[in-house]
């Protein structure tokens, strides 16, 4: 069994004449909370989409716990949970029904679905609204439910693509606590975020990606020290020449 949760080798993805990923090589260890940072269009979502088996790379390979994301896509899908960038939930179902549906898609038994749903709704502060149609949820509530859907099957590896965007500070901190808790339980988490403070607080290690290339890799402290700056945001500006939030 592979010690690495994720192994990416020479991954390249071209969209007609645009190079979205340029020979990306990266490894994420088991139990790591890894931050994938970069400005808009840097290639973060493309990398995650390949790792989830949603799109095929032009060349190179991506493996999840030793399973190739293309050849063993079905196995990979059972191992991972993905909170996609879009707030994708069924508006005509209640929060609880959304969770039950995805629990069934992962073939969990009734008891597990009930237990996991109750726990996730509680952690996301949605217990009181569990039986309301999600069409009536606020933007922040939808984002929290979207995160809960990604984790209903208690995946070993979770990809969280901008999980706290559009959340109020209180909700964001609650989600941070939850992500930390998951990581403490040994889950591997790959987080993309525009909030440098979030990455600095949560991530064991970060990779900065720009124009499809990995331009920096290390712990936040290592990168800050190496670039002789005060925080991760300054590291980002120094390396990319851009302020991340301006891109949002």
């Amino acid at each position, binding site marked *: 069994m592979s010690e690495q949760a994720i192994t990416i080798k020479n991954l390249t993805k071209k969209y007609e004449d645009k190079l979205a990923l340029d020979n990306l090589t990266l490894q994420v260890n088991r139990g790591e909370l890894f931050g994938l940072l970069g400005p808009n269009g840097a290639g973060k979502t493309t990398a995650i989409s390949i790792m*989830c*088996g*949603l799109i095929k790379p032009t060349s190179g390979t991506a493996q999840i716990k030793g399973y190739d994301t293309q050849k063993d896509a*079905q196995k990979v*899908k*059972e191992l*991972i949970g*993905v909170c*996609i*960038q*879009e*707030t*994708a*939930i*069924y*508006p*005509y*179902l209640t929060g609880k*029904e959304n969770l*039950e*549906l*995805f629990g*069934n*898609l*992962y*073939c969990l038994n009734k008891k597990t679905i009930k237990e996991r749903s109750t726990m996730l709704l509680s952690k996301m502060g949605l217990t009181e609204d569990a039986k309301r*149609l999600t069409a009536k949820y606020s933007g922040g509530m939808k984002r929290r439910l979207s995160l809960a*859907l990604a984790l209903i099957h208690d995946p070993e590896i979770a990809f969280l693509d901008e999980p706290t965007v559009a959340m109020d500070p209180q909700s964001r901190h609650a989600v941070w606590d939850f992500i930390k808790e998951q990581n403490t339980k040994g889950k591997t988490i790959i987080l993309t975020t525009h909030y440098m403070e979030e990455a600095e607080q949560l991530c064991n290690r970060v990779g900065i990606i720009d124009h499809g290339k990995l331009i920096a890799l290390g712990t936040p402290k290592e990168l800050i020290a190496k670039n002789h700056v005060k925080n991760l945001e300054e590291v980002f500006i120094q390396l990319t020449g851009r302020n991340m939030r301006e891109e949002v």
Partner: protein
Amino acid sequence: MKTQRIFALTKKELKKTVREPAALFMIFLFPVVFVLAFGLSFGGVGGGQTVTYQVGIVDLSNSQWSETFTDSLSNVTMLKVTAYGDNQTVQTDLSQGKIQAAIIVPESFSESITSYYAAPEDSSKWVNATVALYLDKGSMVATQAIPPIIQQVLNGITDQNQPAHQSPIQLQTASLEVKQVSAFDYFAPGMFTFASVFMIMIVAQSFTGDRENGMMKRIRISPTTPTEFMASQVTSYLIIALIQCAIMFGMVYALGFRPNIGLPDYAFAFILVLVFSLSNVGFGLITASIAKTSGAATGLSFLFLLPQMFLGTFVGASLSGAAEVAGKAVPSYYVTNALTSLFLRGAAITSPTVLIDFAVVLGSCIGILAVGIVIYAKYYKV
């Protein structure tokens, strides 16, 4: 293939139909309101138009007078007369909609006319005879237009100047033996088809909507296989079609449509409409493959919906001959035709016309659904 996934997605899709006002209206309420309005408006009213009618004649008299009668019928521009050798053949063609009327000239026809001309003023010396006229009960226009034409031709053979058109020849119309058929009865078979074609729009909107809001992506990330996903969609729309079909049968029955057929005929009609509904799911998938947004899907769905509606449902009954020919290119035409044969013409399930129509509907359903699934899966990798 995991049934747990298929069941969960099917349940989700059914909840969507019930909870989304637009889908609920288009699939269930619109057909109900439409049938109700149509039934109340036209339940007892007839209407008509002028076309050429195919008439079959069986000459049992085989005499000069019966030849004169046949020639006179042939001279009527609205009629195209074909001679038949026996009653059974002409009845078969009538039940399959190949002709709109069948005339049986009795053996005593010549004797009756001769007796009339021997004593035109003394009806006691006439030999009475009855010309039987069988009509296509599936054609509202034919049942109303043909009897007066035949009667007029018969009057012409005897003395037209008789003040009260007294004649030893009586025209007996077979359809008069059954209950009076209303305009609603004529249109009822097409209503089932009419309601079902809206499935195209609902399916197209549903798939494009799920793509737009990222749900399709979310499903693709889960271990749900394309086969499980498509199976759940087809199952859910089959259930929706089943409910829609039951509601439609209930509605038209409640409004007085009571064809004189047995339970197997009803069951067959039900299956026919269900198969047709599945072909509309296929059209919906094709539309969803072409359309980028749910708004575009609504518009594009009319490309499939309108021809089916105008050429193949009850709307097509009042169109030109050219439109009727064009109608043969859409599945709805065969559904309406088969239902008309069953409900109104009295054709058996095993009759060639019904079986051929069913085969066309089934074949087109399999083809359209397969094309829809393949195209959708190819472009969107469900």
